[in-house]
């Protein structure tokens, strides 16, 4: 368990054995955007937003799940990396409903924040959108799969933190989606109100049901001058 020296963006840094590139980078003040990664959950490298360029590697590697090795030379913001990240976000946005203006997540949406940070505007792809009915029969949880970006945070949180394994992915290709048990709408029988999945969802594919009179609580989204 010794120190490992590597180079991130031309600066020498050290990290412990077993750390990932992302952890070392964040420790040293290098900001790598992430989407599916949460430090409480096991990294799966699903979203490809955290890719970095490692010298000697043919492909870009996902920094959230790649352990550091001695003498690694890493570029976190080279043109190739930034282009790849933009494309990843653009593809996520391409079949995400474009109703940000009236969306509940609005300024708290991680997808929107990442898109703004990376300067991704309206996607140039005209893709089919997902149309799923909003599941609001549960008193604890409202699911809007149209806004799901398949980051699998809810799946892992339910499994690793709540120890329930209610969610999973199913089907394939464009039809791939997060299911509950046997692809049934989430109701109060299958899921209690532990809220772990709601707290990790980057968009508002999962949210708490609104209660009457609570709509205007919290700070206003736009502060008047």
């Amino acid at each position: 368990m010794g120190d490992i020296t590597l180079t991130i963006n031309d600066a020498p840094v050290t990290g412990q054995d077993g750390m990932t590139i992302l952890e070392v980078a964040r420790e040293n003040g290098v900001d790598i955007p992430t989407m599916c990664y949460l430090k409480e959950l096991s990294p799966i490298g699903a979203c490809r937003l955290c890719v970095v360029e490692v010298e000697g590697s043919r492909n870009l590697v996902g920094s959230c799940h790649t352990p550091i090795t001695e003498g690694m030379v890493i570029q976190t913001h080279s043109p190739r990396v930034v282009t790849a990240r933009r494309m990843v976000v653009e593809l996520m946005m391409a079949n995400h409903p474009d109703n940000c203006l009236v969306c509940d997540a609005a300024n708290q949406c991680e997808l929107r924040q990442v898109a703004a940070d990376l300067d991704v505007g309206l996607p140039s792809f005209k893709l089919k959108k997902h149309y799923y009915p909003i599941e609001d029969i549960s008193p604890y949880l409202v699911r809007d799969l149209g806004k799901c970006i398949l980051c699998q945070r809810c799946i892992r949180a339910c499994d690793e933190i709540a120890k329930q394994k209610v969610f999973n992915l199913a089907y394939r290709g464009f039809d791939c989606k997060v299911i509950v048990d046997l692809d049934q709408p989430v109701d109060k029988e299958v899921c209690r109100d532990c809220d772990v999945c709601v707290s990790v969802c980057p968009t508002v594919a999962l949210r708490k049901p609104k209660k009457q009179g609570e709509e205007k609580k919290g700070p206003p989204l736009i502060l008047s001058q």
Partner: protein
Amino acid sequence: MEPVKVDEIIDKYPAQSSVLIQLLLDIQGEFSWIPREAIQCVSERLNIPLSQIYRVASFYKAMSLTPRGRHVVNVCLGTACHVRGATRIIDKVEDSLGIKTGETTEDMQFTLQRVNCLGCCALGPVMLVDKDYHGKMTPAKVAAVLKDYD
């Protein structure tokens, strides 16, 4: 569906999660689809979450989550068959069975599916009914082929 048969199939294998795919294939072979009740049985016996089994069953084309007809008709729409007019074959099959691709006839005789290659492009356009390959198909031959399975 008879739960006894599902139990019999489960009993053939050690109760561990690694047998899942083989088990689902056996259930598929027995009932020609995978009923929800069977998934529930497997989940209880092997202690695998329902959603995990559903994930596997929905991923593989070899497994079906809806009842299938007695005969499964696969029309190849791979490149070689496609350029030789396989779309006309599948249209003809749809017409004569009165169903769309992916559906099953009401009398549960036929299920129609499209596949993207059957591996015998020289015979194209190819139609596979159960385990019989029918090569060099024409729309005119469709009715005669289907009649053999009625």
